[in-house]
Each structure stands twice: as structure tokens, then as C-alpha cells.
């Protein structure tokens, strides 16, 4: 009896089964939905500098997330939404933080849609980071960003590092605090009052490029952005009128970190060119961590950074010649308790801002956070910061994750 045909038949069936199983796993889509509800309370304990500004700001925020991934995770659709309701009408806002399609294959990755991208290494100032507009009403530290429409193509090479190409078809304006809000200027700035240098306005077609690589203990990034800047430019004419608009800029950025034992040495620097303004800015510093001090997981990190901005007092963030010092304490306990505190002080005046951030998990799906920003002895001659001199505040927030 010849058993070969049966053998081949078996082999065929097995193979078909394998192929079927493979296409099954390729086609299999993983869905993931998450929701964060946050209650927040901000309290400004000094009397307001400008009339109609409030002291108490209870607020609610919702952050839904959805992800669908297939093709073993090499293709996905990602969504992150955001809504906040606040006493300040301008801080009541919603945003699509992310909504993009992603495909990765071998050494390249393509992203199409609204996305968030971060560049940089320093802690107290984020100079190099330019792709996304800052959500200026959301947090004081400027770390929350608005979603940016983009096409991003990433090409990774083993020898020459990673190359990122960005096409940015639409510009988003910064929102400033409203009438009742704190941390604003004497006149309320309506974002729609700010114009553009470009005739195409928000539809100017912008581009950016970044290269990053690492060599042993060195991590380096070089970037260039050409388009409408994220920071508005405030020009004061001789009669005292303010002309504020979004200029067309060319910005070249460098970020470098050297990771040597427990030391992290950091440098960020930019050169920005616009018709109305050219300037250089940098942040340079270090982070040192004493780890597992008590043999129980306690880490204490020390941070120090020097900040320089050639714009001097026109620097929107008021960090023109300042020293930042701080400490990060991580307990590495089951609740992930951590504390970050520090201060930024001006080397030419008395102005100092102290800050505190602490957070902890409760149970498996609750977190609580405390934040404090104290404006201390702010020089009345500081063009921008003097407006915030009575705006020291504490913030508590509690989040529930579903």
C-alpha cells in the first residue's frame, strides 16, 4: 500500500491550517477603551491683581482613549480626547489630543492624523520641543500640548540613527486665560485677535525634520522646523501699542544627553530666525540620582539647570538668565509615590518661582496629585512675570480610571 498520497494530503491540511491560523492572527484586531475622570481644585490664595479674576477654580476633566491594533500591532488607529469644564470660560475647552493611523514595516513607520510628538532632555524648560502647540490654559509648566495634524514618516537605520520627516498642514493658536482666569496679563488676550505673518494664515504648509542617534553614553538629536511658530511674537511700538502675531520662523535645535553612571548631563539649545526677531536660547544642566538609599527603594534625584534666552525680558516664559534647582523623590512603593520640588530664580533680579508636584496611587484605579506654584518676590519691572506676581496657587486633583 502506498501511503504517500495520505501523507501529502495530511501535509496539505496541516499547511492550510497553519496559513489559516496565520491570517487569523494577522487579521485579529485588538480593541482597547479607557476613560479617566478627573476632579480638580485650584486655589489662588493672594488677592487678584486684576478685577474680575477669581480665587477658587473647581474643575472637571474627561479623557477618553481608544485604540484598535491589527497586523500584530504593526497597524493601529489611536484616539485620545480631552474635555475640561472650568470657572474660567477660556479654560473650559475640548481637544482631540490624538487621532491617527499608524503603520510600521521593517525599518519605517508612517503616522497620519492628529498626534503628539516630544523632543528634548531638560526638565525646567522645553526649548527644542516645537511640533505641538502648548495647551497654555491647562497647566503652568507648559507640558500639556494640543493635538497637531501631521504626516510623519520615520526611517530608522542601525548605523546612522533615526530620521523623522514631518509635514504639518495646519497651525493651532495658543489659548490664553479668560476674564475670570489667573495667570494672565492686564488685558485679556483673545486668541482670535492674534494674526499671522503668513498670508495663508493657519493653513500655511509647514515642515520639520529631526535626526537622533546614540553612541554609547551619548544620545543626540538635531532638528529643524520651518513654518509658523508656536509662540506668538509681541512687538511694542513707540506709542505703547502691542502688535501680536504668529511669525514665520526657522528654528534649529540641538539636544544632547550624556548618561554616565548615576549622572545625566543635559543640553538643549535653539536658534530661531524670523523677520522681526533672531535669537539664541539654551538650557544646560545635570541630574544625579542617589538610588535605593534605604535599601527599600527610596531614590533621591538632584537637578540643576541653567537657562539662557537672548530675547531677555521678551522671552514669553520669562526664563532669560535663570537657575533651576530641584529634587525628585521616588519611593518606588506599590503606590508609586513621588515628589518633585524646586525653584527657578532669576540671576539679575529677586524673582523666584517655587514649585511642588506630588502624586500617589490609591487602590488600583485612583490617583491623587498635589501641585503648588509660588511666585516669590517678583520684580515689578519684569515685563511678563510681574503680571503673575499675585497668582501663587495650590492645585489638588483626584482621578479615577475605568
Amino acid at each position, binding site marked *: 500500500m502506498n501511503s504517500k498520497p495520505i501523507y501529502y494530503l495530511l501535509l496539505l491540511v496541516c499547511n492550510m491550517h497553519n496559513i489559516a491560523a496565520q491570517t487569523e492572527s494577522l487579521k485579529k484586531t485588538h480593541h482597547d477603551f*479607557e476613560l*479617566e475622570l478627573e476632579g480638580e481644585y485650584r486655589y489662588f490664595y493672594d488677592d487678584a491683581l486684576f478685577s474680575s479674576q477669581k480665587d477658587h477654580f473647581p474643575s472637571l476633566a474627561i479623557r477618553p482613549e481608544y*485604540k484598535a491594533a491589527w497586523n*500584530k*500591532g504593526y497597524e*493601529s488607529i*489611536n484616539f485620545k480626547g480631552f474635555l475640561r469644564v472650568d470657572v474660567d470660560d477660556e479654560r473650559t475647552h475640548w481637544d482631540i489630543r490624538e487621532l491617527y493611523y*499608524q503603520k*510600521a514595516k*521593517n*525599518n519605517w*513607520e508612517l503616522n497620519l492624523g492628529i498626534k*503628539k*510628538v*516630544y523632543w*528634548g*532632555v531638560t526638565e525646567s524648560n522645553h526649548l527644542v520641543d516645537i511640533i505641538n502647540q502648548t495647551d497654555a490654559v491647562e497647566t503652568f509648566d507648559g*507640558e500639556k*500640548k494640543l493635538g497637531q495634524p501631521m504626516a510623519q514618516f*520615520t526611517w*530608522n537605520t*542601525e548605523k546612522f540613527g*533615526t530620521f523623522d520627516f514631518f509635514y504639518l498642514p495646519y497651525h493651532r493658536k495658543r489659548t490664553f486665560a479668560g476674564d475670570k482666569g489667573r495667570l494672565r496679563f492686564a488685558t485679556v488676550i483673545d486668541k482670535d485677535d492674534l494674526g499671522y505673518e503668513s498670508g495663508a494664515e493657519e493653513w500655511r504648509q509647514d515642515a520639520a525634520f529631526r535626526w*537622533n542617534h*546614540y553612541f554609547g553614553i551619548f*544620545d543626540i538629536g538635531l532638528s529643524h522646523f520651518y513654518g509658523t511658530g508656536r509662540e506668538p511674537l509681541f512687538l511694542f511700538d513707540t506709542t505703547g501699542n502691542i502688535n501680536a502675531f504668529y511669525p514665520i520662523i526657522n528654528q534649529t535645535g540641538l539636544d544632547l*544627553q550624556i*548618561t554616565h*553612571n*548615576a*549622572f*545625566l548631563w543635559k543640553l538643549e539649545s535653539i536658534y530661531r530666525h524670523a523677520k522681526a526677531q533672531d535669537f539664541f536660547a539654551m538650557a544646560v544642566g545635570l541630574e544625579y*540620582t542617589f*538610588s*535605593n538609599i534605604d*535599601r*527599600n*527603594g527610596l*531614590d533621591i534625584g538632584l537637578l540643576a539647570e541653567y537657562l539662557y534666552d537672548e530675547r531677555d525680558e521678551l522671552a514669553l516664559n520669562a526664563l532669560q538668565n535663570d537657575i533651576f534647582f530641584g529634587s525628585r523623590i521616588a519611593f*518606588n*512603593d*506599590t*503606590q*508609586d509615590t513621588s515628589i518633585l520640588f524646586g525653584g527657578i530664580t532669576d540671576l539679575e533680579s529677586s524673582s523666584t518661582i517655587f514649585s511642588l508636584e506630588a502624586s500617589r*496611587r490609591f487602590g*488600583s*484605579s485612583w*490617583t491623587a496629585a498635589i501641585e503648588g506654584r509660588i511666585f516669590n518676590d517678583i520684580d515689578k519691572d519684569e515685563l511678563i512675570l510681574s503680571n503673575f506676581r499675585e497668582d501663587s496657587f495650590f492645585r489638588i486633583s483626584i*482621578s479615577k*480610571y*475605568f
Partner: protein
Amino acid sequence: MKTLVLIGLSLLSITFLTAQSAEQRGLQIAKAADKADQGFNSSIVHLKMTLKNKNGQTSERLLITKTLEQTADGDKSLIVFNSPKDVKGTSTLTFTHKIGSDDQWLFLPSIKRVKRISSNNKSGPFVGSEFAYEDLSSQEVEKYSYKFLKENGTLLLVEQDPVDPKSGYTRRIVTYNKSKGYRIEKVEFYDRKNSLLKTLTYSNYKLYKGKFWRAGTFTMVNHQSNKETVLKFSEYNFEANLTDEDFTQVALKRAGQ
């Protein structure tokens, strides 16, 4: 008389040989265990970590670990947190090196930041668990010096002294199972004061691809704090054919997005 000298000489050489081979045999066993596990190429595994404090209260973390085998240097690994939900997407990328410190990057999903971090903190606890970072990093032969202790049936006990002075241990006593591809059954950790700190027990072993033994459960007991951490591994996948492109900073961001 001649015979006596000969016997004496051979006795001497035996003592000499055994004295020399405690270290050599220890190294041989470590190398044999390393060799037995060579050729797995890559793996993906789901992990449930249960942390138990001394009062018996527990908390859980869910992680996915991807590993890429390297021959010339240490393995590459990518770890993604899926729970607790407030840290979901937090990920680490580690390039282990046989000699010198490892390269490690952390991805923070809330601000989309990739941060190169120091791998100096070997002895610190991994996310509040009883596992130190060094317990979970890729075990390379070059990271220890060895001393064979004793043979107990098919079980071989080897003392391992960490080469790196930043390690939290003076020594570990590792129990290998010779008849099961030199898989590890138990590790006892001695702290810097040389007193017993922790015991790690491997159980629910399964054989994958007819060659690779993987434990389904790791139980780490801290004898000094009476705390315990249990790792449960599931859905081991050796067929994913991962490449270097799955272990880059681009892939790290993709994993945690």
C-alpha cells in the same frame, strides 16, 4: 615504595584538580545552562505580577515582555505596562551588555517622552516589587564569577558572585537541574551583609519548541521584610520572529502609545 609515591602523587593531583575545578565547574554549569537556552531567537510573554505585603494585602501589575536573543552581546528587551491604568503604556527598552552597564530608555506616554535613564540602580526594587532590576535583567554568563558547591541527584548548586560592585548582593546560590536542560529551580540571594535576603522559586515549568524550558511562575520571598512577589507568565510566543527593528526607540514609542 614506588606505588606509595604514585598513590601520593595521584591523590595530590586529584585534590589539585578538584580545588581548581570548583570555580571551573561552576562556570561550566553556567555556560551549559546558557548554551541550552541558545537559539530561541525571540519571545513575547504576558506577565501578571502580584505584590503581597506583610499583612497579606495584594496589588497587581500586568506587563508584556518582548525579548530578542543576541549572540555577540547581551539580549535586548522591551517591557510595556498595561496596568495599573494610570501608568498604562509606560515602557522600557534595555540593551544588556555582557561587560559594562546596560543601555536603558524609558517611555512616558502622558507627555510622549523618551528618556535615557541610568542603569546604575541595579539593586533598587522594580515597580515596588521584591524583584530588583538586576533580578529581571538578562542573565549573562560574564556578569558573575562562579563556584560549584554540591551535587544533589540531578540538582547542581552553584554560588555566583556578581562582578558589578553596584549589585545589591554578595552572592547568589543557584540550583540548576542538569536533567532538564540546566533550567534553574531556585535562587537564594545574600545581601551585602551576607545574610539571606530573598529566595526565588521557579515552578510550573513547560518545555517550548522541544528545547526551551520556561517557568510559568516565579515566587520571590523576602525573608527580611516578609513581603512576597509572584510573577505568572502566560501566552509564551516563540513564533513572533521579532527583529532588531522591534527593539528601537521608535518601537518603544509604538509599544507604549
